[in-house]
């Protein structure tokens, strides 16, 4: 199955689209089926897919992508304040602004490679963060973050007399509209904002497949493999890396714009180096250079942040209800340090375990499970060797 997906992009797209669109149903049993988290999954998925175009393909490790996320968010919120609550102009501006910003930063930082490039991007992002937090407060509203207010102009929108801030919308379709239903005791929420993000994610995923399979993508992979050879093969690598940098910066800007569209606030923390770090971790955790991995990694990290941090003693007691009293308490005592305020401990452990046992990230785990299932399946059939040989030959075509 996995190897089939690897070779058949159409099938991969269809499976991916179905999984994403059915997100609210699939994730509900895991307690993650509510709009905010679903939106985050989709949006950070976009971010990670975009980052993977730079890091996964060219191997350039940028520590500054959070800056583009922030630029996108600020641009979008400003559009909401000045122009209209329709998300389209905001998102367009977010992509353009982050693209321009990426062009500027990329133009300077891509003069260096390796760790020097990483530190340069880090320096840019940290400067953006520090300034956004303090000196640039008139534009960014500093510590509090840029928020909407009743007094905003919104020149394209009708005059607002409701006394509350209008919600973000897509031609009247409000982002926070949610259709809820309860089936078999499970609460399912189908949210407009999520589906907007999801369709964009699917589109962006498709774009990333196109890039991966294009001559351009091949050149980017060649840069990662042996930049020297590429130069002596008559390729000017700088525009390639710059293009990849700008594209992935625009992805980040898009994600930032979407974040602001779902929740109209842009905070400076979005630009901090730790945010850039977590984007990197998403991609590595999922599997660098794989198509699905980054989306998976983004999901896992956001899931930990949203769900593990919110498990408290009461929830644990409810879980271990089934056990006799003293064992229940013992289990709660054992598990408690790893959830709630200890959620980061668990996340750290997951990072370590994944990288130690699954060097290729979660995608490698999936592949291994896939191969293992294949083996089990093939054990009975006579032509098993043939099939597996075929698949392995095929998968090297990747």
């Amino acid at each position, binding site marked *: 199955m996995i190897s089939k997906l690897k070779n058949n992009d159409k099938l991969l797209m269809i499976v991916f689209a179905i999984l994403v669109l059915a997100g609210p149903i699939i994730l509900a049993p895991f307690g993650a089926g509510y709009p905010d988290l679903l939106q985050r999954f989709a949006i950070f998925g976009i971010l990670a897919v975009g980052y993977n175009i730079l890091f996964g393909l060219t191997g350039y490790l940028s520590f500054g992508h959070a800056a583009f996320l922030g630029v996108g968010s600020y641009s979008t919120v400003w559009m909401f304040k000045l122009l209209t609550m329709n998300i389209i102009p905001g998102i367009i501006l977010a992509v353009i602004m982050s693209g321009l910003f990426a062009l500027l930063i990329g133009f300077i930082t891509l003069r260096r490679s390796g760790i020097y490039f990483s530190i340069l991007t880090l320096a840019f992002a940290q400067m953006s963060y520090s300034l956004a937090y303090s000196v640039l*407060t008139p534009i960014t509203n500093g510590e509090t973050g840029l928020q909407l207010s009743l007094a905003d102009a919104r020149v394209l929108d009708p005059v607002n007399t409701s006394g509350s801030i209008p*919600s973000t919308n897509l031609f009247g379709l409000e982002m926070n509209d949610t259709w809820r239903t309860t089936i078999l005791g499970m609460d399912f929420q189908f949210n407009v904002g999520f589906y907007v993000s999801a369709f964009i994610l699917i589109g962006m995923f498709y774009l990333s497949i196109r890039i991966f399979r294009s001559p351009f993508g091949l050149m980017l992979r060649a840069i990662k493999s042996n930049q020297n050879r590429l130069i002596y093969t008559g390729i000017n690598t700088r525009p390639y890396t710059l293009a990849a940098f700008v594209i992935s910066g625009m992805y980040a800007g898009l994600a930032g714009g979407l974040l602001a569209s779902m929740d109209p606030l842009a905070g400076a923390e979005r630009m901090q180096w730790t945010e850039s770090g977590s984007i990197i971790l998403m991609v590595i955790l999922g599997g660098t250079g794989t198509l699905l991995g980054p989306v998976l990694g983004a999901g896992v990290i956001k899931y930990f942040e949203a769900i593990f941090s919110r498990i408290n003693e009461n929830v644990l007691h409810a879980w271990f209800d089934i056990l006799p009293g003293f064992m229940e308490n013992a289990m709660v005592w054992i598990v408690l340090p790893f959830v709630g305020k200890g959620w*980061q401990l668990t996340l750290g452990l997951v990072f370590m375990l994944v990288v130690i046992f699954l060097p290729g990230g979660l995608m490698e785990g999936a592949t291994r499970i896939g191969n293992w299932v294949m083996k089990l399946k093939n054990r009975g059939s006579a032509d098993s060797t043939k099939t597996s040989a075929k698949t392995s030959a095929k998968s090297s075509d990747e």
Partner: protein
Amino acid sequence: MSVFTPNRRGLLKSGALIGTGLAMPTIFTASSVAAYTNAPTGSGAILGFNVPQSGPYADEGADELRAYKLAVEHLNGGGDGGMMNTFSSKALTGNGILGNEVKYVTGDTQTKSDAARASAKSMIEKDGAVMITGGSSSGVAIAVQGLCQEAGVIFMAGLTHSNDTTGKDKKANGFRHFFNGYMSAAALAPVLKEMYGTDRVAYHLTADYTWGWTQQESIAAATEDMGWQTINNVLTPLATQDFSSYIAPVLNSGADILVLNHYGGNMINSLTAAVQFGLRDRQVNGKNFEIIVPLYSRLMAKGAGANVKGIFGSTNWHWSLTDAGSQAFVKSFGEAYGFPPSQAAHTVYCQTLLYADACERAGTFDPCGVVEALEGFDFDGLGNGPTHYRAGDHQCFKDVLVVKGKENPTSEFDLLEVVQVTPRAQVEYPVDHPMFAGGALGKCNSGA
């Protein structure tokens, strides 16, 4: 619209099968045609406790969480009732809120606006929280307050000291019990005048973000009114660890007062550096050099250790107060956890009680009803003397404590001593005071 309680074990099993063993839909909203967001349906009222559990303010968050748990226990009729017994309003009877058992969910703000909003959103969307409360910084409080306004739930702010929370960023659905920068300044000024005289030259170090600016503005205005001169105001980056390069220029600046408009780690580090540079042993203009920390908390005092001795500041509440309300709270908190509560714990406990009481008096959880019940509400017995929730900006007005670092602490919690309780009249200001101008409450939003 039936409320369906799922078979938790069954869910757990299926969850484990899929590989994570996580299943947590414990709270269910039944009705989508309710009159307001997350209306409780008789199975319990969900409160969302959104506090910092990671990051520099995690200890403060932990203390807030303790107080919240205590408040929930008391509201549901457990424990000794704490301040419910001394509270002037008697609407609360210990059977939850409006007959609904009080339940709660917790989240981690990480002291980041983004994370705090995400956490609050999940409480509203997933857990069906009807009220959000907590936080340990103004940026977070303002961000979450904005969210609650849009989502149509009540926000009861935790520790937030910026003028903006009930100033230019005030919101109809948001309420603050904690005091603010202006009140700190108004309370401190008379004491400083008495202690240090009217002929002083002050040097300000200010954390370079909105809270720092508003506090500096307030303190400078109040001290200049009584004749002090503000010689300099230096903005320091939030990320500063070693403040030596900001402290050193103070030495020969001609100033004889240093005001540290810092909070948390910033304050601990700047005060440590200031004392290390011998500022307190200096004589300038023929007077002893003095340091002032306008906003104090016990955790900060603990972090700065012996350096806080004799240094003046203000605080919202302190456990050594002897009124009946404070004593009742300290007793029940102390017996439950073994140490006295911090001011953060106190303010969030009060906020929870005030919210519950407002619901009872309004007869509904509807935010608009609650807003109406809280606006202009006068009460007593929650530790700060007679208190007024002003309708115009949702700020509480009450006495403010001026404290000083204790010279001979008897335990690790006994770090501050109350110098003066500044009466409420002295710290009041008009709703349209220029430091609070620029925002509008808007209308209450009940979400439906």
